[in-house]
């Protein structure tokens, strides 16, 4: 079923009786050309681009729970391309371009809103760093504008410009940055993959990876054995457990990152805004809730909920920056499980097993990467060659020292 304005009007006139389930619910076949473990944003986009770009449609996505039930439905929905390092820049730039055409491509409203992202800076040194980052973004072909204090005031008059401890010196404006409706991204990719013949199999947990003579031959699941010559592991926070089935230890430690949402309010925050002197970033959802988050709790966790010290930090930082939000009531807080690598950058690569591929290590930045990650992972699985945009996302870069440390804080598990 193709969605269109006409379809909405027609259905409205006839009692909305013509809508059908958006994807099939097939039983797993005994064999596929390729199997993807993990039905989150990255797994679903990989399946879609395998079909769309490479003509591989005999593909299954195996999801142990329900589609989009993990981090793709638990994030703060920010989409941006403001990276600095070669290797990251091209990748996120490509991802943003895919975002800009995503709704037409998927025939699905993902509510992508390029409302602008403003990263605030609070010192001369931070201004220099942001000017340099902005120049790098412009060199890459993306957009960046350095705002001075009055420039920021024009866009964000509600910030506390008078406080002495963290004075606002300006901000880096990335106009094409913004947000998208996170669940819709998973649903849009799922529907589009299904329409091209991909089997989306839910409630199907992978319990083993079959390897013979160094080649992958299939997977064992709670719904029986499935043969496949190519298997992609795209399971985010659970990467360690799935890779262990193939005898691998990964450079990944899973951490919890918390986020918060308030009751619905009238429009007050028109952009995505981040504080430069504490971990706090905020946007307002289309439903009116203020969506904001902070930093990791900083200890290994699979609990999908965090502890109170980080809650306190985020609330303090928010009140420091924009005291007007103090009267809003927080409705919910939650945690997502982040697959943290030592240098804070992802992995899209082959493994030591032929036909077994890995897409993980998205740290706290996986949502914006959903389109390009699927694009590059599909390229890798279909051609056995790394896509040029993902060439530095190597599994062995920690052993070789060819790191991708965007923050510049070092390559160690407790630093990112």
């Amino acid at each position, binding site marked *: 079923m193709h969605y269109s304005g006409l379809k909405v009007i027609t259905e409205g006139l006839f009692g909305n009786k013509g809508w059908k389930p958006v994807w099939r619910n097939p039983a797993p076949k005994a064999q596929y050309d390729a199997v993807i473990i993990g039905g989150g944003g990255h797994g679903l986009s990989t399946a879609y681009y395998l079909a769309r770009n490479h003509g591989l449609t005999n593909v299954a996505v195996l999801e142990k729970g329900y589609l989009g039930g993990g981090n793709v439905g638990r994030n*703060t929905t*920010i989409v*941006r391309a*403001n990276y600095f390092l070669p290797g990251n820049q091209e990748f996120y730039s490509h991802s943003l371009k895919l975002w800009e055409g995503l709704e037409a491509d998927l025939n699905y409203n993902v509510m992508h809103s390029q409302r602008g*992202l403003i*990263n*605030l*800076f609070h010192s001369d040194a*931070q201004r220099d*760093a*942001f000017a340099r*980052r902005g120049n790098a973004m412009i060199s890459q072909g993306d957009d960046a504008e350095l705002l001075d204090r009055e420039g920021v005031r024009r866009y964000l008059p509600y910030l506390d410009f008078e406080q002495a401890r963290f004075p606002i010196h300006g901000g*880096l404006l990335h106009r094409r940055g913004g947000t998208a409706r996170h669940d819709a991204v998973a649903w849009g990719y799922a529907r589009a993959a299904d329409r091209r013949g991909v089997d989306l199999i839910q409630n199907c947990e992978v319990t083993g990876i079959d390897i013979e003579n160094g080649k992958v031959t299939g997977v064992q699941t709670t719904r029986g054995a499935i043969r496949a010559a190519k298997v992609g592991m795209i399971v985010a926070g*659970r*990467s*360690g*457990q799935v890779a*262990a089935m193939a005898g691998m*230890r*990964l*450079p*990944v*430690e*899973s951490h919890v*990152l918390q986020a918060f949402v308030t009751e619905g309010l009238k429009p007050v925050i028109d952009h*995505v*805004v*981040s*504080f*430069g*002197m*504490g*971990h706090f*970033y905020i*946007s307002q959802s289309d439903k009116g809730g203020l969506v904001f*988050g902070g*930093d990791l709790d*900083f*200890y*290994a*966790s*699979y*609990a999908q909920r965090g*502890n109170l*010290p980080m809650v306190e930090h985020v609330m303090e930082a928010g009140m420091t920056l924009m005291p007007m939000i103090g009267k809003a009531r927080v409705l919910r807080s939650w945690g997502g499980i982040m697959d943290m690598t*030592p240098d804070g950058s992802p992995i899209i690569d082959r493994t030591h097993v032929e036909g077994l591929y890995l897409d993980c290590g998205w740290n*706290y*930045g996986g949502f914006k990467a959903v389109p390009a990650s699927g694009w590059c992972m599909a390229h890798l699985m279909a051609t056995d060659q790394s896509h040029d945009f993902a060439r530095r996302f190597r599994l062995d870069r*920690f*052993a070789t020292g060819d790191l991708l440390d*965007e*923050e*510049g*804080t*070092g*390559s*160690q*598990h*407790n*630093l990112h």
Partner: protein
Amino acid sequence: MRITCPLCGSRDRREFHYYGGAVYAERPAADAPPEAWDGYLHLRDNPAGETRDLWYHELGCSAWIEVTRNTVTHAVLSARLLAGPERQGRSARSILTKKKPNSGGKGR
């Protein structure tokens, strides 16, 4: 979350700095092969369930302790003082690294 320091007793999590998996306490010899150093620095079992990790009692007695915890429930099961022969005379503070403020200045 509260952690029971073997020297100070039950203390708030905020007094402690997390350093990572307990494998950090098993430093390879200086002439160990590169694979051993890669394993020590980067590769992790990353278990969902019981785990052992290294914490530093930064705002307390400055002890390095090994904490046994459950990563799914956040229950802290036990903690033991880490004797330091493998530190080879380096002070505990010299291997402590701190997280800088938001250097990337980015929304996550």
